[in-house]
């Protein structure tokens, strides 16, 4: 069985985001880009499944500008067997990503598709659900534990929901999206970085896959969240009550 994993190149989680002065988006020039943390978890899970003998190959897919190849190299250095880069130079929205992915699934025929539950740049949290819908595959979203049964061709997925843990049983092939606590991704070791250099990366364009990229969305404006006002230290309970009454008008 093959596992296909999507990995997205995003602004590094630890970078302080700055909004462009013209409010059309955020500044990405000279900003550190890294793999989306949820995708890293998805890839780690796929690698663990392969290492336990339940899958034969892990294919990493990234869509975006040519620099996405760096992200694929990272994925290959973590242990993916090969990469697919779908080159796209304008913004991709979840439905377009899902449509492209559907074509790749038709070509590669994986038995399992693992995605991050969301990308930390647009926080859409839609792609996994959409691709499951397009493929008509069962889905286990926000997975915090995944167990595969190769004989029965079933994946058991634990999901952290508001009132506890929900356990789903999915027939393969299936779509799984990963939550933060599923696993702790491995580091890229030097021997694996070396090996990654000779692993193949296949390139496609959306046109070659017969997918038209269009969006039903228009971004009107991107702004920073309002700044938090600094607090004050009051010297007595009376002063506190006075301020709550007369300044904050809450009592």
């Amino acid at each position, binding site marked *: 069985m093959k596992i296909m994993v999507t990995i997205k190149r995003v602004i590094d989680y630890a970078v302080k985001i700055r909004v462009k002065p013209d409010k059309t988006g955020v500044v990405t020039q000279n900003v*550190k880009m890294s793999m989306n943390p949820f995708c890293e978890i998805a890839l780690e899970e796929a690698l663990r499944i392969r290492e336990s003998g339940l899958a034969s190959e892990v294919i990493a897919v990234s869509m975006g500008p040519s620099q996405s190849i760096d992200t694929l190299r990272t994925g290959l*250095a973590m242990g993916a067997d090969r990469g697919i880069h779908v080159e796209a130079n304008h913004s991709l929205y979840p439905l377009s990503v899902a449509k492209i992915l559907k074509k790749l699934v038709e070509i590669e025929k994986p038995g399992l598709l693992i995605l991050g539950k969301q990308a930390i740049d647009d926080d859409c949290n839609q792609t996994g659900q959409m691709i499951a819908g397009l493929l008509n595959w069962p889905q286990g979203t926000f997975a915090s534990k995944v167990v595969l049964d190769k004989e029965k061709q079933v994946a058991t997925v634990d999901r952290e929901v508001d009132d506890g843990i929900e356990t789903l049983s999915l027939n393969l092939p299936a779509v799984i999206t990963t939550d933060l606590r599923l696993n702790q991704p491995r580091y890229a070791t030097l021997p694996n970085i070396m090996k990654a250099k000779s692993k193949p990366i296949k390139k496609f364009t959306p046109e070659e896959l017969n997918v038209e990229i269009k969006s039903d969305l228009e971004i009107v404006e991107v702004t920073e969240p309002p700044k938090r006002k600094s607090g004050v230290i009051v010297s007595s309970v009376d002063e506190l009550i006075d301020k709550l009454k007369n300044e904050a008008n809450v009592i």
Partner: protein
Amino acid sequence: MGGVVQRSPRFSELNDDDVRYFQEILGKKNVIQDDDKLSAANIDWMHKYKGASKLILQPCNTDQVSQILKYCNSRCLAVVPQGGNTGLVGGSVPVFDEVIVSLSSMNNIISFDKVSGILVCEAGCILENIMSFLDNEGFIMPLDLGAKGSCQIGGNVSTNAGGLRLVRYGSLHGSVLGVEAVLANGTVLDMLKTLRKDNTGYGLKHLFIGSEGSLGIVTKVSILTPPKLSSVNVAFLACKDYSCCQKLLQEAKRKLGEILSAFEFLDSQSMNLVTNHLEGARNPFPTSLHNFYVLIETTGSDESSDKQKLEAFLLGSMENELVSDGVLAQDISQASTFWRLREGISEALMKAGAVYKYDLSIPVENLYNLVEEMRSRLGDAANVIGYGHLGDSNLHLNVSVPRYDNKILSQIEPFVYEWTSKHRGSISAEHGVGLMKANEIFYSQSRETVRIVVYY
């Protein structure tokens, strides 16, 4: 531990009139007699040195510092300047009942020149706050150290702090362009230049860099800051023995020269300590044991070529067997995880019990021999660990014990100082002299040098 020092009868004791005078010049709020605040200010970061001061003064400007010192001088009241109180040699807390002059309220940034990168600020600015201010401007501080969340720039200058980036940006003697300081009699010395070059006579400001408050109180600092470069890479490596670490350093200086920004090492004992005592710290090589670990950081302006260069260097070092295994951070949080293994050692030591800390400059080829000799001297009685800024030949030798014990101390000292002196090292590479090494200074300075200072 300085127990031999006697309080000199020359110094007066604090009385109510003194307190009233301070309240007049500083306002009541800045004259602190609160027990909780006093007990925190009386004890050092390691909980090793403890004073009995009854008063903290928090001046808000240079003029107030001057008035305080002038008054204390006339009344013969002893004074200790205090920054973030992260000093490691017992210099930041009173020995007896000295008045504590805290610079914490002098925390304004005065000016920043975006063209030259020259920052002028008050001495009480916390290092990390300056770093985030500069980050917004696209610049960085030329020094970085584990205590950045608490230590102040005035304290850094007064201890001539070295830290993690010295290998790249040099010592504060190079990057500090000017200092404003107040002498014990209240005289304000304005040496707050913002010039890269200034050869008009003696470089007096240099005396204040590393003088640990002994010459006066530093009130303002002007410092040259380098621009922030966009590409930072961090690798964490395993080496089988110390000689590999040494050769790796030589190679790194040659092959990564212009982008190398840190070269740190730790031994397996340090690694165990960190992974056992710090939550979330994990060894990047969980399955195999290694004797030494090296952290290499590069900072440059071109992400792809820097990374290529570093990768080529690392793969080459693996082929030459200088490195037995290694990981390369793929994002900033992985880089911070690697840094935490090195920077977290001090904190882990504190959690493990009491610690005797030695901060030594020793030529690289001999540096680790001292750790091994100490280990065999102390046997099972203590956990001896070695780590530090290998790129600057700076060893942090730490002896971790359940509690402070004079019997163990007598096994360590004076041996450690004699050994260092014999190998022409320095008994204080970057932490200073403080109370801890006041009597040991002769191991690293000649009699004549000390005499010229003391009797001047």
